[in-house]
């Protein structure tokens, strides 16, 4: 809606900082995870349908596109869950001061990367053992 009123400073005049980046990533990963539920539905429907359908979904998951999606999905899920817990703490009134917002922010970044790495170590260890 066009308006003649002055607008408050927005993203383009702000220096990028951790808190706003994590806020944007939280939204983006949320949308990505919602889109990723298609893979979850496909897997469950295939498992209900029979071996042939299940093999098709498994084959897609092992393809480079499927692997790329699963890598992204793993990190998006790890990040959204860790940052979601950070949000729940805020909702409970904890961690609003700036030093703590940065500390929990960097903790979320580190934890999400660590969890994703652990998951894929488990996946490749199993695939290697097979």
């Amino acid at each position, binding site marked *: 809606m066009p308006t003649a009123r002055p607008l408050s400073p927005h993203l383009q005049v702000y220096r990028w900082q951790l808190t706003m980046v994590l806020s944007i990533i939280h939204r983006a990963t949320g949308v990505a995870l919602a889109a990723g539920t298609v893979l979850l*539905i496909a897997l469950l429907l295939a*498992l209900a349908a*029979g071996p042939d359908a299940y093999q098709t979904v498994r084959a897609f998951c092992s393809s480079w596109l499927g692997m790329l999606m699963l890598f992204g999905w793993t990190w998006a899920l790890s990040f959204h869950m860790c940052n979601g817990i950070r949000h729940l703490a805020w909702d409970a009134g904890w961690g609003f001061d700036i030093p703590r917002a940065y500390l929990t922010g960097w903790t979320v970044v580190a934890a999400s990367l660590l969890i994703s790495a652990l*998951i894929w170590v488990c996946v490749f260890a199993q*695939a290697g053992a097979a």
Partner: protein
Amino acid sequence: MNTTDLQTPLKRARGLGSAKDGTHHFIVQRITALALVPLTIWVIFLALALVRADYAHAHAIVHQPFAAIWLTAFVLATFWHAQLGLQVVIEDYVHSRWLEVTAQLAVKFFCAAGALASVLAIVRIALG
């Protein structure tokens, strides 16, 4: 608080917000988020158990009553939480009214269909 105001805080909160539903959206989003933390952690372990499993083994894992119940809870909370989250994104960024309504309906239909399909698939695996 103004002592002559007979409205309760709930009455004042109702009808506010972009979706005109007051704090209900906020609260349900938090409840589903809280539920999804343990649900998701367990589903990650389930997914890891499925990596090496062939069809029969994978089917047997999800066939277990506990797994089927937990997975159903995960799927319902996931699609509910996804709908609530996508709703806010659309409210924030889509400013043309008909496009907004269309997008909101599309998201609701997708999440409802996704939840129904997933639950029916789990039921079929659990009973099959």
